[in-house]
Protein backbone atom coordinates (compact mmCIF):
# COMPACT_ATOMS: atom_id res chain seq x y z
CA UNK A 1 0.00 0.00 0.00
CA UNK A 2 2.86 2.32 0.84
CA UNK A 3 4.47 1.73 -2.56
CA UNK A 4 1.10 2.40 -4.25
CA UNK A 5 0.76 5.75 -2.47
CA UNK A 6 4.39 6.60 -3.23
CA UNK A 7 3.90 5.99 -6.95
CA UNK A 8 0.55 7.82 -6.90
CA UNK A 9 2.21 10.84 -5.28
CA UNK A 10 5.02 10.72 -7.82
CA UNK A 11 2.52 10.57 -10.69
CA UNK A 12 0.60 13.60 -9.43
CA UNK A 13 3.79 15.55 -8.79
CA UNK A 14 5.12 14.87 -12.26
CA UNK A 15 1.79 15.87 -13.85
CA UNK A 16 1.72 19.11 -11.90
CA UNK A 17 5.30 19.91 -12.90
CA UNK A 18 4.46 19.18 -16.51
CA UNK A 19 1.80 21.91 -16.09
CA UNK A 20 -0.78 19.46 -17.31
CA UNK A 21 -3.45 20.54 -14.85
CA UNK A 22 -2.70 24.21 -15.39
CA UNK A 23 -3.03 23.82 -19.17
CA UNK A 24 -6.32 21.93 -18.90
CA UNK A 25 -7.78 24.39 -16.43
CA UNK A 26 -6.74 27.37 -18.56
CA UNK A 27 -8.50 25.91 -21.61
CA UNK A 28 -11.55 24.96 -19.53
CA UNK A 29 -11.89 28.42 -18.02
CA UNK A 30 -11.72 29.93 -21.51
CA UNK A 31 -14.37 27.57 -22.89
CA UNK A 32 -16.62 28.09 -19.86
CA UNK A 33 -16.25 31.85 -20.28
CA UNK A 34 -17.36 31.66 -23.90
CA UNK A 35 -20.23 29.36 -22.96
CA UNK A 36 -21.37 31.86 -20.31
CA UNK A 37 -21.91 34.46 -22.99
CA UNK A 38 -23.81 31.96 -25.15
CA UNK A 39 -26.04 30.73 -22.32
CA UNK A 40 -26.84 34.27 -21.29
CA UNK A 41 -27.93 35.17 -24.83
CA UNK A 42 -29.92 31.95 -25.19
CA UNK A 43 -31.84 32.24 -21.93
CA UNK A 44 -32.77 35.87 -22.58
CA UNK A 45 -33.69 35.58 -26.25
CA UNK A 46 -36.82 37.66 -27.03
CA UNK A 47 -38.17 35.29 -29.66
CA UNK A 48 -38.84 32.44 -27.23
CA UNK A 49 -40.79 31.98 -24.01
CA UNK A 50 -39.01 31.54 -20.70
CA UNK A 51 -40.00 27.86 -20.69
CA UNK A 52 -38.56 27.39 -24.14
CA UNK A 53 -35.44 29.27 -23.05
CA UNK A 54 -34.99 26.97 -20.10
CA UNK A 55 -35.48 23.97 -22.39
CA UNK A 56 -32.91 25.36 -24.86
CA UNK A 57 -30.36 26.02 -22.09
CA UNK A 58 -30.75 22.44 -20.79
CA UNK A 59 -30.24 21.01 -24.29
CA UNK A 60 -27.26 23.26 -24.96
CA UNK A 61 -25.74 22.28 -21.62
CA UNK A 62 -25.96 18.62 -22.63
CA UNK A 63 -24.05 19.47 -25.80
CA UNK A 64 -21.41 21.39 -23.85
CA UNK A 65 -21.03 18.59 -21.37
CA UNK A 66 -20.73 16.15 -24.25
CA UNK A 67 -17.74 18.14 -25.39
CA UNK A 68 -16.29 18.02 -21.88
CA UNK A 69 -16.96 14.30 -21.59
CA UNK A 70 -15.05 13.88 -24.83
CA UNK A 71 -12.16 15.95 -23.43
CA UNK A 72 -12.20 13.97 -20.16
CA UNK A 73 -12.16 10.65 -22.03
CA UNK A 74 -9.43 11.64 -24.50
CA UNK A 75 -7.35 13.20 -21.73
CA UNK A 76 -7.65 9.97 -19.77
CA UNK A 77 -6.33 8.00 -22.74
CA UNK A 78 -3.61 10.58 -23.41
CA UNK A 79 -2.22 10.61 -19.88
CA UNK A 80 -2.51 6.86 -19.29
CA UNK A 81 -1.15 5.52 -22.58
CA UNK A 82 2.46 6.64 -21.95
CA UNK A 83 2.51 5.99 -18.21
CA UNK A 84 3.96 2.47 -18.26
CA UNK A 85 5.19 1.94 -21.81
CA UNK A 86 7.24 5.12 -22.12
CA UNK A 87 8.88 4.50 -18.75
CA UNK A 88 9.79 0.98 -19.81
CA UNK A 89 11.18 2.25 -23.10
CA UNK A 90 13.18 5.04 -21.46
CA UNK A 91 14.39 2.84 -18.60
CA UNK A 92 12.92 5.00 -15.82
CA UNK A 93 10.99 2.03 -14.42
CA UNK A 94 14.05 -0.23 -14.16
CA UNK A 95 15.33 1.09 -10.85
CA UNK A 96 11.80 1.36 -9.45
CA UNK A 97 10.76 -2.25 -10.08
CA UNK A 98 14.18 -3.46 -8.93
CA UNK A 99 13.20 -2.22 -5.45
CA UNK A 100 11.23 -4.43 -3.03
CA UNK A 101 7.88 -3.49 -4.55
CA UNK A 102 5.31 -5.57 -6.39
CA UNK A 103 4.65 -4.46 -9.92
CA UNK A 104 0.93 -4.48 -9.25
CA UNK A 105 1.51 -1.75 -6.67
CA UNK A 106 3.33 0.32 -9.27
CA UNK A 107 0.36 -0.10 -11.62
CA UNK A 108 -2.16 0.72 -8.89
CA UNK A 109 -0.09 3.75 -7.91
CA UNK A 110 -0.16 5.02 -11.48
CA UNK A 111 -3.91 4.41 -11.65
CA UNK A 112 -4.55 6.14 -8.34
CA UNK A 113 -2.44 9.16 -9.27
CA UNK A 114 -3.95 9.58 -12.73
CA UNK A 115 -7.48 8.94 -11.43
CA UNK A 116 -6.99 11.68 -8.83
CA UNK A 117 -6.04 14.10 -11.58
CA UNK A 118 -9.02 13.02 -13.64
CA UNK A 119 -11.39 13.39 -10.70
CA UNK A 120 -10.03 16.85 -10.03
CA UNK A 121 -10.50 17.86 -13.65
CA UNK A 122 -14.01 16.38 -13.99
CA UNK A 123 -15.04 18.03 -10.72
CA UNK A 124 -13.59 21.40 -11.70
CA UNK A 125 -15.28 21.32 -15.11
CA UNK A 126 -18.68 20.54 -13.62
CA UNK A 127 -18.43 23.11 -10.85
CA UNK A 128 -17.30 25.87 -13.21
CA UNK A 129 -19.82 25.16 -15.96
CA UNK A 130 -22.84 24.58 -13.71
CA UNK A 131 -22.18 27.62 -11.55
CA UNK A 132 -21.70 29.83 -14.59
CA UNK A 133 -24.87 28.51 -16.27
CA UNK A 134 -26.82 28.93 -13.05
CA UNK A 135 -25.63 32.50 -12.67
CA UNK A 136 -26.39 33.61 -16.24
CA UNK A 137 -29.57 31.59 -16.88
CA UNK A 138 -30.84 30.34 -13.56
CA UNK A 139 -30.68 26.69 -14.65
CA UNK A 140 -29.00 24.03 -12.52
CA UNK A 141 -29.07 20.35 -13.53
CA UNK A 142 -31.23 18.18 -11.24
CA UNK A 143 -28.23 16.26 -9.85
CA UNK A 144 -24.93 18.00 -10.66
CA UNK A 145 -22.88 15.76 -8.35
CA UNK A 146 -23.99 12.61 -10.14
CA UNK A 147 -23.21 14.22 -13.49
CA UNK A 148 -19.63 14.80 -12.29
CA UNK A 149 -19.42 11.25 -10.95
CA UNK A 150 -20.61 9.74 -14.24
CA UNK A 151 -18.19 11.89 -16.21
CA UNK A 152 -15.34 10.84 -13.94
CA UNK A 153 -16.19 7.13 -14.08
CA UNK A 154 -16.48 7.32 -17.86
CA UNK A 155 -12.95 8.76 -17.97
CA UNK A 156 -11.75 6.27 -15.36
CA UNK A 157 -12.76 3.33 -17.55
CA UNK A 158 -10.84 4.69 -20.51
CA UNK A 159 -7.91 5.52 -18.22
CA UNK A 160 -7.84 1.94 -16.94
CA UNK A 161 -8.06 0.54 -20.46
CA UNK A 162 -5.21 2.74 -21.75
CA UNK A 163 -3.09 1.98 -18.67
CA UNK A 164 -3.56 -1.77 -19.09
CA UNK A 165 -2.77 -1.55 -22.78
CA UNK A 166 0.37 0.48 -22.00
CA UNK A 167 1.82 -2.49 -20.12
CA UNK A 168 2.23 -4.20 -23.50
CA UNK A 169 1.78 -1.71 -26.32
CA UNK A 170 3.82 1.31 -27.30
CA UNK A 171 2.61 4.78 -26.31
CA UNK A 172 1.05 5.51 -29.69
CA UNK A 173 -0.54 2.07 -30.06
CA UNK A 174 -2.05 2.14 -26.56
CA UNK A 175 -3.40 5.68 -27.10
CA UNK A 176 -4.81 5.04 -30.56
CA UNK A 177 -6.42 1.73 -29.59
CA UNK A 178 -8.05 3.27 -26.51
CA UNK A 179 -9.43 6.23 -28.42
CA UNK A 180 -10.63 4.00 -31.27
CA UNK A 181 -12.44 1.72 -28.81
CA UNK A 182 -13.98 4.77 -27.13
CA UNK A 183 -15.16 6.07 -30.51
CA UNK A 184 -16.59 2.69 -31.45
CA UNK A 185 -18.41 2.52 -28.11
CA UNK A 186 -19.97 5.93 -28.63
CA UNK A 187 -20.97 5.06 -32.18
CA UNK A 188 -22.48 1.80 -30.92
CA UNK A 189 -24.62 3.89 -28.54
CA UNK A 190 -25.83 6.10 -31.40
CA UNK A 191 -26.62 3.06 -33.55
CA UNK A 192 -28.57 1.56 -30.64
CA UNK A 193 -30.57 4.80 -30.29
CA UNK A 194 -31.43 4.70 -33.98
CA UNK A 195 -32.44 1.07 -33.59
CA UNK A 196 -34.84 2.02 -30.84
CA UNK A 197 -36.16 5.02 -32.80
CA UNK A 198 -36.93 2.99 -35.90
CA UNK A 199 -37.59 -0.26 -34.07
CA UNK A 200 -34.83 -2.19 -35.82
CA UNK A 201 -33.80 -5.10 -33.61
CA UNK A 202 -30.34 -5.61 -35.13
CA UNK A 203 -29.32 -1.97 -34.51
CA UNK A 204 -30.72 -2.13 -30.97
CA UNK A 205 -28.62 -5.20 -30.27
CA UNK A 206 -25.49 -3.53 -31.64
CA UNK A 207 -26.07 -0.69 -29.22
CA UNK A 208 -26.63 -3.03 -26.29
CA UNK A 209 -23.53 -5.12 -27.05
CA UNK A 210 -21.44 -1.95 -27.50
CA UNK A 211 -22.49 -0.62 -24.11
CA UNK A 212 -21.44 -3.84 -22.44
CA UNK A 213 -18.12 -4.18 -24.26
CA UNK A 214 -17.10 -0.63 -23.42
CA UNK A 215 -19.47 0.99 -20.94
CA UNK A 216 -18.31 4.57 -21.55
CA UNK A 217 -21.35 5.40 -23.71
CA UNK A 218 -23.68 3.88 -21.14
CA UNK A 219 -22.10 6.09 -18.48
CA UNK A 220 -22.39 9.13 -20.69
CA UNK A 221 -26.13 8.38 -20.95
CA UNK A 222 -26.18 8.34 -17.16
CA UNK A 223 -24.58 11.78 -17.09
CA UNK A 224 -27.16 13.05 -19.62
CA UNK A 225 -30.02 11.72 -17.51
CA UNK A 226 -28.90 13.71 -14.48
CA UNK A 227 -28.33 16.81 -16.63
CA UNK A 228 -31.86 16.91 -18.03
CA UNK A 229 -34.69 18.66 -16.19
CA UNK A 230 -37.82 16.49 -15.68
CA UNK A 231 -39.64 18.55 -18.33
CA UNK A 232 -37.41 17.07 -21.03
CA UNK A 233 -37.75 13.46 -19.94
CA UNK A 234 -41.52 13.77 -19.55
CA UNK A 235 -41.84 15.45 -22.96
CA UNK A 236 -40.18 12.40 -24.52
CA UNK A 237 -41.66 9.79 -22.24
CA UNK A 238 -43.77 8.32 -25.00
CA UNK A 239 -41.87 6.58 -27.77
CA UNK A 240 -38.14 6.15 -28.09
CA UNK A 241 -36.45 8.93 -30.00
CA UNK A 242 -33.09 8.34 -31.71
CA UNK A 243 -31.51 11.38 -30.11
CA UNK A 244 -27.97 10.48 -28.94
CA UNK A 245 -28.10 13.39 -26.50
CA UNK A 246 -31.15 12.19 -24.64
CA UNK A 247 -31.58 9.62 -21.87
CA UNK A 248 -34.99 8.61 -20.56
CA UNK A 249 -33.75 6.57 -17.62
CA UNK A 250 -30.75 6.30 -15.35
CA UNK A 251 -28.43 3.29 -15.79
CA UNK A 252 -29.71 0.29 -13.85
CA UNK A 253 -27.91 -1.15 -10.81
CA UNK A 254 -27.21 -4.26 -12.88
CA UNK A 255 -25.48 -2.12 -15.47
CA UNK A 256 -23.46 -0.29 -12.81
CA UNK A 257 -22.45 -3.65 -11.36
CA UNK A 258 -21.27 -4.67 -14.82
CA UNK A 259 -19.26 -1.41 -15.01
CA UNK A 260 -17.54 -2.33 -11.74
CA UNK A 261 -16.79 -5.83 -13.06
CA UNK A 262 -15.47 -4.41 -16.33
CA UNK A 263 -13.15 -2.08 -14.44
CA UNK A 264 -11.89 -4.91 -12.20
CA UNK A 265 -11.33 -7.31 -15.11
CA UNK A 266 -9.47 -4.78 -17.28
CA UNK A 267 -7.31 -3.74 -14.33
CA UNK A 268 -6.57 -7.38 -13.45
CA UNK A 269 -5.55 -8.08 -17.06
CA UNK A 270 -3.23 -5.05 -16.93
CA UNK A 271 -1.73 -6.23 -13.63
CA UNK A 272 -1.04 -9.74 -14.94
CA UNK A 273 0.34 -8.34 -18.18
CA UNK A 274 2.71 -6.00 -16.33
CA UNK A 275 3.75 -8.72 -13.92
CA UNK A 276 4.70 -10.99 -16.80
CA UNK A 277 6.31 -8.26 -18.88
CA UNK A 278 10.05 -8.73 -19.28
CA UNK A 279 11.97 -5.55 -18.80
Amino acid at each position, binding site marked *: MSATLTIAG*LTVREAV*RRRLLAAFLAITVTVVGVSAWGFERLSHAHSITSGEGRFAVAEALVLFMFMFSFVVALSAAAIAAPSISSEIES*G*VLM*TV*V*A*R*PVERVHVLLGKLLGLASLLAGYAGAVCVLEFVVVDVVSGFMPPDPVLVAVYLFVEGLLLLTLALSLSTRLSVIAAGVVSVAIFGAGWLGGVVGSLGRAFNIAALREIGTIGRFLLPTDGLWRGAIYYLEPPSITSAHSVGAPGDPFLALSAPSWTYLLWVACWFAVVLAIGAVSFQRRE*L
Partner: protein
Amino acid sequence: MWPASSAEPAPNPAADLADELGDGAGAALTASGRRGPSLTTSRAAMRPLSRSPAVHVMGLVKRFGDTSAVRGLDMTVERGEVFGFLGPNGAGKTTVVKMLLGLVRPSAGEGLVLGAPLGDRETRRSIGYLPELFRFQALLSGREVLRLHCRLLGWPKKAWPDQIDGALATVGLLGRGDDRVGTYSKGMQQRLGLGVALLGDPALVVLDEPTSALDPVGRHDVREIVRSLRLRGATVFLNTHLLEEAEQVCDRVAVIDKGRTIATGTLHELLGRQSRLRVKVTGLPDRWWETQSETRARDRRGDWLVLEGVEPAEVPDLVARLVAAGGRVEAVVPEHQSLEARFLELLEEGG
Protein backbone atom coordinates in the same frame (compact mmCIF):
# COMPACT_ATOMS: atom_id res chain seq x y z
CA MET B 1 10.19 -14.61 -7.58
CA TRP B 2 10.12 -16.13 -10.98
CA PRO B 3 9.56 -19.87 -11.26
CA ALA B 4 12.58 -21.18 -13.11
CA SER B 5 11.17 -24.47 -14.34
CA SER B 6 7.85 -26.27 -14.36
CA ALA B 7 8.71 -29.93 -13.95
CA GLU B 8 6.33 -32.11 -11.89
CA PRO B 9 5.94 -32.96 -9.10
CA ALA B 10 6.08 -29.30 -8.06
CA PRO B 11 9.82 -28.87 -7.53
CA ASN B 12 11.44 -26.06 -5.62
CA PRO B 13 14.61 -25.51 -7.63
CA ALA B 14 15.80 -22.76 -5.32
CA ALA B 15 15.58 -25.10 -2.36
CA ASP B 16 17.33 -27.85 -4.30
CA LEU B 17 20.05 -25.42 -5.23
CA ALA B 18 20.37 -24.20 -1.67
CA ASP B 19 20.59 -27.82 -0.49
CA GLU B 20 23.34 -28.34 -2.98
CA LEU B 21 25.19 -25.42 -1.43
CA GLY B 22 25.05 -27.36 1.81
CA ASP B 23 24.49 -24.59 4.29
CA GLY B 24 20.97 -25.23 5.45
CA ALA B 25 19.55 -22.89 2.87
CA GLY B 26 17.21 -25.52 1.50
CA ALA B 27 15.10 -25.82 4.61
CA ALA B 28 14.82 -22.07 4.94
CA LEU B 29 13.80 -21.63 1.33
CA THR B 30 11.29 -24.43 1.48
CA ALA B 31 9.76 -22.80 4.52
CA SER B 32 9.53 -19.46 2.79
CA GLY B 33 7.74 -20.98 -0.18
CA ARG B 34 7.89 -20.25 -3.88
CA ARG B 35 5.82 -17.08 -3.84
CA GLY B 36 8.37 -15.01 -1.99
CA PRO B 37 8.44 -14.73 1.77
CA SER B 38 6.94 -12.10 3.98
CA LEU B 39 9.37 -9.58 5.46
CA THR B 40 9.51 -11.36 8.80
CA THR B 41 9.80 -14.82 7.29
CA SER B 42 12.35 -13.61 4.80
CA ARG B 43 14.60 -12.04 7.38
CA ALA B 44 14.39 -15.14 9.50
CA ALA B 45 15.06 -17.28 6.47
CA MET B 46 17.96 -15.14 5.29
CA ARG B 47 19.88 -15.44 8.54
CA PRO B 48 21.20 -18.98 7.99
CA LEU B 49 21.97 -18.07 4.38
CA SER B 50 24.64 -15.53 5.22
CA ARG B 51 27.33 -18.02 4.27
CA SER B 52 25.82 -18.76 0.89
CA PRO B 53 27.47 -17.17 -2.13
CA ALA B 54 26.26 -13.74 -3.16
CA VAL B 55 25.25 -15.17 -6.52
CA HIS B 56 25.01 -18.78 -7.59
CA VAL B 57 23.37 -19.78 -10.85
CA MET B 58 23.27 -23.11 -12.63
CA GLY B 59 22.26 -23.81 -16.18
CA LEU B 60 20.66 -20.43 -16.65
CA VAL B 61 18.97 -20.18 -20.03
CA LYS B 62 17.11 -17.30 -21.62
CA ARG B 63 15.42 -17.55 -24.98
CA PHE B 64 13.70 -14.71 -26.79
CA GLY B 65 11.63 -16.50 -29.41
CA ASP B 66 14.06 -18.51 -31.48
CA THR B 67 17.08 -16.58 -30.21
CA SER B 68 19.02 -17.88 -27.23
CA ALA B 69 20.55 -14.96 -25.35
CA VAL B 70 21.88 -17.09 -22.49
CA ARG B 71 22.67 -20.79 -22.95
CA GLY B 72 23.24 -22.71 -19.75
CA LEU B 73 25.25 -20.23 -17.70
CA ASP B 74 26.93 -21.45 -14.50
CA MET B 75 28.46 -18.90 -12.17
CA THR B 76 29.27 -18.34 -8.52
CA VAL B 77 30.13 -15.00 -6.95
CA GLU B 78 31.41 -15.18 -3.41
CA ARG B 79 30.40 -12.65 -0.80
CA GLY B 80 32.67 -9.66 -0.43
CA GLU B 81 34.39 -9.94 -3.77
CA VAL B 82 34.44 -7.61 -6.73
CA PHE B 83 33.36 -9.80 -9.59
CA GLY B 84 33.86 -8.71 -13.17
CA PHE B 85 31.39 -10.00 -15.70
CA LEU B 86 33.04 -9.58 -19.05
CA GLY B 87 31.99 -10.25 -22.57
CA PRO B 88 31.63 -8.65 -25.97
CA ASN B 89 28.52 -6.75 -26.97
CA GLY B 90 25.58 -9.12 -27.37
CA ALA B 91 27.16 -11.83 -25.20
CA GLY B 92 24.12 -11.85 -22.90
CA LYS B 93 25.62 -9.94 -19.97
CA THR B 94 22.74 -7.54 -19.39
CA THR B 95 20.19 -10.33 -19.78
CA VAL B 96 21.96 -12.26 -17.03
CA VAL B 97 21.96 -9.18 -14.79
CA LYS B 98 18.24 -8.71 -15.39
CA MET B 99 17.58 -12.34 -14.52
CA LEU B 100 19.51 -11.93 -11.26
CA LEU B 101 17.24 -9.01 -10.38
CA GLY B 102 14.00 -10.65 -11.49
CA LEU B 103 13.42 -8.18 -14.32
CA VAL B 104 13.56 -11.01 -16.84
CA ARG B 105 12.36 -14.59 -16.29
CA PRO B 106 14.82 -17.40 -17.02
CA SER B 107 13.59 -19.90 -19.64
CA ALA B 108 15.38 -22.63 -17.69
CA GLY B 109 17.93 -23.05 -14.95
CA GLU B 110 17.97 -21.87 -11.39
CA GLY B 111 19.81 -19.52 -9.14
CA LEU B 112 20.16 -17.85 -5.78
CA VAL B 113 21.03 -14.26 -5.05
CA LEU B 114 22.07 -13.57 -1.45
CA GLY B 115 20.67 -17.00 -0.65
CA ALA B 116 17.18 -16.33 -2.03
CA PRO B 117 15.58 -17.33 -5.32
CA LEU B 118 16.08 -15.07 -8.33
CA GLY B 119 13.78 -12.05 -8.20
CA ASP B 120 12.83 -12.52 -4.55
CA ARG B 121 11.13 -9.30 -3.52
CA GLU B 122 12.56 -8.89 -0.02
CA THR B 123 16.09 -9.70 -1.17
CA ARG B 124 15.91 -6.71 -3.50
CA ARG B 125 16.08 -4.60 -0.33
CA SER B 126 19.73 -5.69 -0.04
CA ILE B 127 20.63 -5.10 -3.68
CA GLY B 128 21.73 -1.84 -5.25
CA TYR B 129 21.35 -1.70 -9.01
CA LEU B 130 22.66 0.70 -11.61
CA PRO B 131 21.12 -0.27 -14.93
CA GLU B 132 22.91 0.04 -18.23
CA LEU B 133 20.10 2.27 -19.47
CA PHE B 134 20.04 4.73 -16.60
CA ARG B 135 17.18 7.22 -16.71
CA PHE B 136 15.49 8.96 -13.84
CA GLN B 137 12.43 11.15 -13.40
CA ALA B 138 13.54 14.28 -15.26
CA LEU B 139 11.12 16.57 -13.40
CA LEU B 140 12.41 15.59 -9.97
CA SER B 141 15.58 16.89 -8.37
CA GLY B 142 18.42 14.46 -7.66
CA ARG B 143 17.54 14.65 -3.99
CA GLU B 144 13.88 13.87 -4.74
CA VAL B 145 14.87 10.83 -6.79
CA LEU B 146 16.88 9.53 -3.85
CA ARG B 147 13.97 10.32 -1.53
CA LEU B 148 11.67 8.30 -3.80
CA HIS B 149 13.98 5.31 -3.46
CA CYS B 150 14.14 5.75 0.33
CA ARG B 151 10.34 5.53 0.29
CA LEU B 152 10.36 2.47 -1.95
CA LEU B 153 12.83 0.84 0.41
CA GLY B 154 10.38 1.52 3.24
CA TRP B 155 12.80 3.39 5.46
CA PRO B 156 11.67 5.64 8.29
CA LYS B 157 11.83 9.32 7.30
CA LYS B 158 14.42 10.21 9.90
CA ALA B 159 16.96 8.01 8.12
CA TRP B 160 16.55 9.74 4.78
CA PRO B 161 18.64 12.93 5.14
CA ASP B 162 21.83 11.13 6.17
CA GLN B 163 21.44 8.47 3.51
CA ILE B 164 20.66 10.99 0.78
CA ASP B 165 23.47 13.39 1.69
CA GLY B 166 25.87 10.45 1.99
CA ALA B 167 24.93 9.12 -1.44
CA LEU B 168 25.14 12.55 -3.07
CA ALA B 169 28.53 13.20 -1.47
CA THR B 170 29.88 9.81 -2.53
CA VAL B 171 29.03 10.39 -6.18
CA GLY B 172 30.06 14.05 -6.18
CA LEU B 173 26.61 15.58 -6.62
CA LEU B 174 26.13 17.26 -3.26
CA GLY B 175 26.18 20.70 -4.88
CA ARG B 176 23.64 19.76 -7.55
CA GLY B 177 21.26 17.67 -5.45
CA ASP B 178 18.47 20.23 -5.61
CA ASP B 179 18.64 20.69 -9.38
CA ARG B 180 16.21 18.84 -11.60
CA VAL B 181 17.52 15.66 -13.16
CA GLY B 182 16.48 17.01 -16.56
CA THR B 183 19.24 19.60 -16.25
CA TYR B 184 21.92 16.98 -15.52
CA SER B 185 24.47 15.87 -18.09
CA LYS B 186 24.52 12.20 -19.01
CA GLY B 187 27.54 11.67 -16.78
CA MET B 188 25.78 13.34 -13.85
CA GLN B 189 22.74 11.13 -14.38
CA GLN B 190 25.02 8.09 -14.24
CA ARG B 191 26.52 9.41 -11.03
CA LEU B 192 23.00 9.83 -9.65
CA GLY B 193 22.26 6.25 -10.69
CA LEU B 194 25.29 5.13 -8.77
CA GLY B 195 24.06 7.10 -5.75
CA VAL B 196 20.68 5.36 -6.02
CA ALA B 197 22.43 1.98 -6.17
CA LEU B 198 24.51 2.77 -3.08
CA LEU B 199 21.57 3.86 -0.90
CA GLY B 200 21.40 1.92 2.33
CA ASP B 201 24.77 0.13 2.06
CA PRO B 202 23.43 -2.85 0.09
CA ALA B 203 25.09 -6.25 0.51
CA LEU B 204 25.22 -6.70 -3.26
CA VAL B 205 25.80 -3.87 -5.72
CA VAL B 206 25.10 -4.69 -9.35
CA LEU B 207 26.68 -2.18 -11.70
CA ASP B 208 25.84 -2.57 -15.36
CA GLU B 209 28.41 -0.63 -17.41
CA PRO B 210 28.79 1.96 -14.62
CA THR B 211 31.26 4.22 -16.40
CA SER B 212 29.80 4.30 -19.90
CA ALA B 213 28.96 8.01 -19.69
CA LEU B 214 31.77 9.15 -17.43
CA ASP B 215 34.92 11.11 -18.15
CA PRO B 216 38.31 9.88 -16.86
CA VAL B 217 37.79 11.62 -13.52
CA GLY B 218 34.39 9.98 -13.16
CA ARG B 219 35.85 6.58 -14.04
CA HIS B 220 38.52 7.02 -11.41
CA ASP B 221 35.85 7.97 -8.87
CA VAL B 222 33.84 4.86 -9.70
CA ARG B 223 36.89 2.65 -9.22
CA GLU B 224 37.46 4.28 -5.83
CA ILE B 225 33.82 3.70 -4.91
CA VAL B 226 34.09 0.03 -5.92
CA ARG B 227 37.22 -0.35 -3.80
CA SER B 228 35.49 1.26 -0.82
CA LEU B 229 32.56 -1.12 -1.27
CA ARG B 230 34.97 -4.04 -1.12
CA LEU B 231 36.51 -2.60 2.06
CA ARG B 232 33.14 -2.54 3.80
CA GLY B 233 32.49 -6.14 2.74
CA ALA B 234 29.91 -5.58 0.02
CA THR B 235 29.83 -7.77 -3.06
CA VAL B 236 30.14 -5.91 -6.33
CA PHE B 237 28.93 -7.48 -9.55
CA LEU B 238 30.52 -5.39 -12.26
CA ASN B 239 29.16 -5.92 -15.72
CA THR B 240 31.50 -4.27 -18.17
CA HIS B 241 33.19 -4.57 -21.48
CA LEU B 242 35.94 -2.19 -20.35
CA LEU B 243 38.71 -4.64 -19.59
CA GLU B 244 40.99 -2.03 -18.10
CA GLU B 245 38.29 -1.29 -15.54
CA ALA B 246 37.97 -4.97 -14.63
CA GLU B 247 41.72 -5.39 -14.47
CA GLN B 248 42.03 -2.56 -11.95
CA VAL B 249 39.30 -3.46 -9.49
CA CYS B 250 38.11 -7.05 -9.88
CA ASP B 251 39.11 -9.95 -7.65
CA ARG B 252 37.64 -12.47 -10.04
CA VAL B 253 36.13 -12.34 -13.46
CA ALA B 254 33.96 -14.46 -15.68
CA VAL B 255 34.15 -14.12 -19.41
CA ILE B 256 31.00 -14.94 -21.30
CA ASP B 257 30.38 -15.21 -24.98
CA LYS B 258 27.25 -16.25 -26.84
CA GLY B 259 25.48 -16.73 -23.52
CA ARG B 260 27.98 -19.19 -22.01
CA THR B 261 30.81 -18.84 -19.53
CA ILE B 262 34.05 -19.45 -21.40
CA ALA B 263 36.45 -18.67 -18.56
CA THR B 264 36.27 -17.81 -14.92
CA GLY B 265 38.77 -17.24 -12.15
CA THR B 266 41.02 -14.68 -10.57
CA LEU B 267 42.94 -12.38 -12.86
CA HIS B 268 46.09 -14.25 -11.84
CA GLU B 269 44.52 -17.55 -12.83
CA LEU B 270 43.32 -16.12 -16.07
CA LEU B 271 46.50 -14.28 -16.98
CA GLY B 272 49.18 -15.89 -14.79
CA ARG B 273 49.15 -19.14 -16.72
CA GLN B 274 50.06 -17.19 -19.72
CA SER B 275 52.91 -15.26 -18.04
CA ARG B 276 55.89 -14.66 -20.19
CA LEU B 277 59.46 -13.93 -19.16
CA ARG B 278 61.97 -12.07 -21.24
CA VAL B 279 65.60 -12.51 -20.21
CA LYS B 280 68.50 -10.55 -21.68
CA VAL B 281 71.53 -12.77 -21.43
CA THR B 282 74.93 -12.58 -23.12
CA GLY B 283 77.91 -14.97 -23.08
CA LEU B 284 75.94 -18.20 -23.26
CA PRO B 285 77.58 -20.93 -25.28
CA ASP B 286 76.01 -21.40 -28.72
CA ARG B 287 73.09 -23.83 -28.78
CA TRP B 288 73.32 -24.17 -24.97
CA TRP B 289 69.59 -23.70 -24.62
CA GLU B 290 68.81 -26.59 -26.95
CA THR B 291 70.82 -28.94 -24.70
CA GLN B 292 68.58 -28.16 -21.71
CA SER B 293 65.49 -30.15 -20.86
CA GLU B 294 63.76 -26.83 -20.66
CA THR B 295 61.48 -26.59 -23.67
CA ARG B 296 59.50 -23.51 -22.88
CA ALA B 297 61.73 -21.16 -24.82
CA ARG B 298 59.47 -19.61 -27.32
CA ASP B 299 61.93 -17.50 -29.10
CA ARG B 300 65.46 -16.16 -29.07
CA ARG B 301 65.89 -12.73 -30.50
CA GLY B 302 69.52 -11.70 -30.33
CA ASP B 303 70.41 -11.50 -26.67
CA TRP B 304 66.80 -11.91 -25.56
CA LEU B 305 65.29 -15.22 -24.55
CA VAL B 306 61.50 -15.33 -24.50
CA LEU B 307 60.07 -18.01 -22.18
CA GLU B 308 56.43 -18.94 -21.79
CA GLY B 309 54.63 -20.03 -18.63
CA VAL B 310 57.36 -19.37 -16.10
CA GLU B 311 56.06 -19.16 -12.55
CA PRO B 312 57.63 -16.39 -10.40
CA ALA B 313 59.11 -19.03 -8.05
CA GLU B 314 61.08 -20.54 -10.89
CA VAL B 315 62.90 -17.32 -11.80
CA PRO B 316 65.84 -17.50 -9.28
CA ASP B 317 66.71 -21.06 -10.35
CA LEU B 318 66.51 -20.12 -13.97
CA VAL B 319 68.86 -17.17 -13.46
CA ALA B 320 71.30 -19.38 -11.46
CA ARG B 321 71.39 -21.92 -14.30
CA LEU B 322 72.08 -19.22 -16.86
CA VAL B 323 74.92 -17.78 -14.75
CA ALA B 324 76.37 -21.24 -14.08
CA ALA B 325 76.46 -21.83 -17.82
CA GLY B 326 78.61 -18.70 -18.23
CA GLY B 327 75.82 -16.38 -19.15
CA ARG B 328 75.68 -12.77 -18.04
CA VAL B 329 72.12 -11.94 -17.12
CA GLU B 330 71.48 -8.28 -17.83
CA ALA B 331 67.73 -8.13 -17.45
CA VAL B 332 64.77 -10.28 -16.40
CA VAL B 333 61.48 -8.81 -17.52
CA PRO B 334 58.25 -10.59 -16.53
CA GLU B 335 55.47 -9.89 -18.99
CA HIS B 336 51.87 -10.61 -18.21
CA GLN B 337 49.48 -10.99 -21.02
CA SER B 338 47.02 -8.12 -20.96
CA LEU B 339 43.46 -8.97 -20.12
CA GLU B 340 42.51 -7.66 -23.51
CA ALA B 341 44.85 -10.08 -25.28
CA ARG B 342 43.65 -12.95 -23.11
CA PHE B 343 40.04 -11.92 -23.66
CA LEU B 344 40.47 -11.95 -27.43
CA GLU B 345 42.25 -15.28 -27.19
CA LEU B 346 39.40 -16.76 -25.15
CA LEU B 347 36.81 -15.51 -27.60
CA GLU B 348 38.81 -17.02 -30.43
CA GLU B 349 39.14 -20.34 -28.59
CA GLY B 350 35.44 -20.27 -27.83
CA GLY B 351 34.73 -19.98 -31.53
